[in-house]
């Protein structure tokens, strides 16, 4: 069984703060892990992915994520958030041999001015 868990439904930080959005997964085989962002009223947009190699992957707009096999995690981080980062973030798992995406529940990131 493949599962993705995002433990925080809602995270609120001040503009300029750092943030970490948590993601844990369950699957024993080869997988892709990715993050998608959904701005209010919009469709989801791809942010970054990990399959192998360097466990820290860079995405657009200063986002990065770190894969940990021992913790079964793929947390998303940003050093200094901007108000435009307010959105819902989805952690997504994909079996290497299958195209179907398994979504986490999503974490809503709110930025205070």
């Amino acid at each position: 069984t493949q599962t993705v868990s995002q433990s925080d439904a809602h995270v609120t930080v001040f503009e300029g703060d750092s943030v970490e959005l948590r993601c844990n997964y369950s699957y024993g085989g080869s997988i892709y892990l990715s993050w998608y962002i959904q701005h209010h009223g919009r469709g989801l947009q791809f942010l970054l992915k990990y399959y192998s190699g360097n466990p820290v992957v860079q995405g657009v707009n200063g986002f990065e994520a770190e894969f940990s096999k021992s913790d079964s995690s793929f947390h998303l981080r940003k050093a200094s958030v901007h108000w435009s980062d307010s959105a819902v973030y989805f952690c997504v798992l994909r079996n290497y041999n299958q195209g179907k995406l398994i979504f986490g529940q999503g974490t809503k990131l709110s930025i205070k001015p």
Partner: protein
Amino acid sequence: EAAVTQSPRNKVTVTGGNVTLSCRQTNSHNYMYWYRQDTGHGLRLIHYSYGAGNLQIGDVPDGYKATRTTQEDFFLLLELASPSQTSLYFCASSDAWGAGYAEQFFGPGTRLTVL
């Protein structure tokens, strides 16, 4: 850039009503998908297709039909709508399924309310 459009953007119907949601992609992608998004569940796959005339069952197919008429067009049909189908529906496309990561491109969504 990839483009996926959906219509209508909002739809209200009554229980037992007949609804068709439309999706068009201009990316020349082979794969298209229908998802529903509900609070606490993330996105769940309803149906998907890898080409005109093809249909594959997703994880939550009950009460839904779909049809892929062309490479560009994918339709989701609710023939006897029920209140449990009130949701936000997304269409997406991608150019691969198997080995090798294929980013999915999403449409803006259709909000469906079944009274």
